[in-house]
């Protein structure tokens, strides 16, 4: 993939890339910290939740090469779990989110265990079918309150003393959750485990021949991705103070794919931008008569046809991106 570039040139390049990365990181952090002064806090919180969700999804599609069409189960499932334990059992917010994460991870374990038996296209269809099953479960189960959803979920006090009803406090809490999630993802993909996942993505047969138990690694990645999607979903339930069927429906699974595709599959920060675009677009269209579905569908088709690298992928591959020292795959 790096034909012709000598080792030293590559180190220099990646050094300059990491410098650029650090610069962008600092700018991004500053922007996120001051953002509530300029934008409606709920909007940015929503954006952060979806960004984390998309990054969690990308862990699977971008770094393991598995297309899950059922990630709404983990996002929406965790939202239900968190909302239920916080509202009905009086759990504190941090404990509620933890319950959401664990619940999503368990759902991921079950779905992953069944789905990794088939590959590629079948994997996508199986995850879609299983998540539809979970949707029907949520439609009928008592604790989800069917079509009504779980409403007026209290935000409560973080660690017992930080009042999350203040939207400033809530915002910085969500930002902290988002950053923790991103650090976990970053550590994960740069760990030996993450490297093995990439090798599975590139050449599954070879990974098997090297003695790796591919199924177990895939399952590990699936559970990890589900848990992080759960982190995003549980947090979202506290932000909006409700959990509904929308979050477990297949459209949600499609949305997160679009965010990742639009931002750049297999790039660490691409899905954040993808999520930002999609959420902004939805907010913008929500006030007009024009249905979001048509726009989403067209963006999907255009992305697949001519824009497969996504925003960040295209940027990395552009002249400016290469000058800044980034490398692009594929």
């Amino acid at each position, binding site marked *: 993939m790096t034909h012709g570039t000598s080792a030293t040139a590559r180190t220099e390049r990646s050094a300059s890339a990491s410098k650029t990365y650090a610069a962008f990181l600092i700018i991004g952090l500053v922007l996120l910290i001051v953002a509530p002064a300029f934008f409606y806090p709920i909007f940015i919180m929503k954006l952060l939740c979806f960004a984390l969700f998309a990054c969690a999804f990308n862990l699977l599609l971008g770094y393991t090469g598995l297309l899950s069409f059922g990630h709404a189960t983990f996002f929406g499932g965790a939202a239900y779990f968190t909302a239920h334990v916080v509202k009905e059992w009086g759990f504190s917010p941090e404990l509620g989110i933890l319950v959401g994460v664990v619940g999503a991870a368990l759902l991921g374990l079950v779905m992953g265990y069944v789905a990794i038996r088939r590959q590629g296209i079948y994997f996508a*269809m199986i995850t879609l079918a299983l998540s*539809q*099953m979970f949707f029907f479960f949520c*439609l009928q189960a008592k604790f989800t309150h069917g079509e009504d959803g779980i409403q007026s979920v209290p935000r409560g006090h973080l660690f017992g003393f930080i009042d999350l009803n203040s939207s400033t406090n809530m915002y910085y809490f969500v930002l902290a959750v988002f950053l923790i999630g991103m650090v976990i993802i970053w550590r994960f993909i740069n760990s030996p485990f993450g490297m093995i996942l990439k090798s599975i993505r590139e050449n599954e047969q070879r990974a098997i021949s090297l003695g790796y138990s591919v199924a177990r690694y895939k399952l590990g990645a699936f559970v990890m991705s589900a848990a992080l999607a759960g982190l995003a979903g549980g947090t979202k339930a506290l932000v909006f103070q409700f959990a509904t069927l929308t979050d477990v429906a297949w459209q949600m699974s499609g949305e997160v794919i679009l965010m990742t595709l639009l931002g750049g599959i297999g790039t660490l920060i691409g899905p954040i931008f993808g999520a930002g675009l999609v959420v902004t677009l939805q907010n913008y269209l929500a006030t007009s008569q024009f249905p979001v579905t*048509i726009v989403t569908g067209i963006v999907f088709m255009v992305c697949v046809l001519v824009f*497969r690298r996504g925003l960040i992928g295209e940027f990395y591959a552009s002249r400016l991106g290469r000058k800044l020292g980034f490398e692009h795959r594929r």
Partner: protein
Amino acid sequence: MTMIFGIPLQAFLGQLLIGLINGSFYALLSLGLAVIFGLLRVINFAHGAQYMLGAFAAMLMLDYLGINYWFALILGPIVVGLFGAVIERTMLSRLYKLDPLYGLLFTFGLALTIEGTFRYLYGSSGQPYAVPPQLAGGTNLGFMFLPIYRGWVVVVSLIACIGTWLLIEKTKLGSYLRAATENATLVQVFGVNVPLLLTLTYAIGAGLAAFAGVLAAPVYQVSPLMGSNIIIVVFAVVVVGGMGSIMGAIVTGYMLGIAEGLTKVFYPEASSIVIFVIMAIVLLIRPAGLFGRDA
């Protein structure tokens, strides 16, 4: 009253019939999916949308042009098939060289666009389509009451399934199709126009979906959402049957439709998920699917 397993026979047979009808649609749709996948290596997510287009075509032709059910049954699939051919030629054909996942994502976007457009134009609620007068009413079979149209659906879809199977297994065109599935490059070397064959295959698949849609119009309500509701179930059917064999797709479709109908009799709460449960069980026991050759 005759009872079977503690259930009135009438209710039992009624649900069995509904299961058989649902199964007919599952069979027709999974058959089309299998035909398209066999040659194009694309999972056609827009299959549900094309099914919905068929139903809408029938309804709109009746409302605006006064074309009756019988002509719609022929014209609907042709119109939707042509639409499919255009999509394949202009867009889908660019994706064959890529990972098959892109085909799935593209057709997913296509499905959203079509569905969204129809929701925008006609609203989300369903609209009725009258049963054609020749097939109205019902007949008493002695042990149960059979609405004629429902019997017609079962018979016609069975004929369509067997017809497609014969087309693929017994005709010259079918032999080209099967050969191209095995090795497209070699078939092209022999002078067969493979790109045309691909377009034709996609058009046939889309046409089959539309045919199912026209058949479904008098049974279910004609609604923009009818496609996405059924396509996910059909995916599960396809996973159970494995897409390797055409016959496998047909048999699995009917089997799962009946299983769903029977669940409605004995444990109604589970009827919406029973097909997914069966899929999970099959995957645990036989990962390649019931008729699948490759994992």
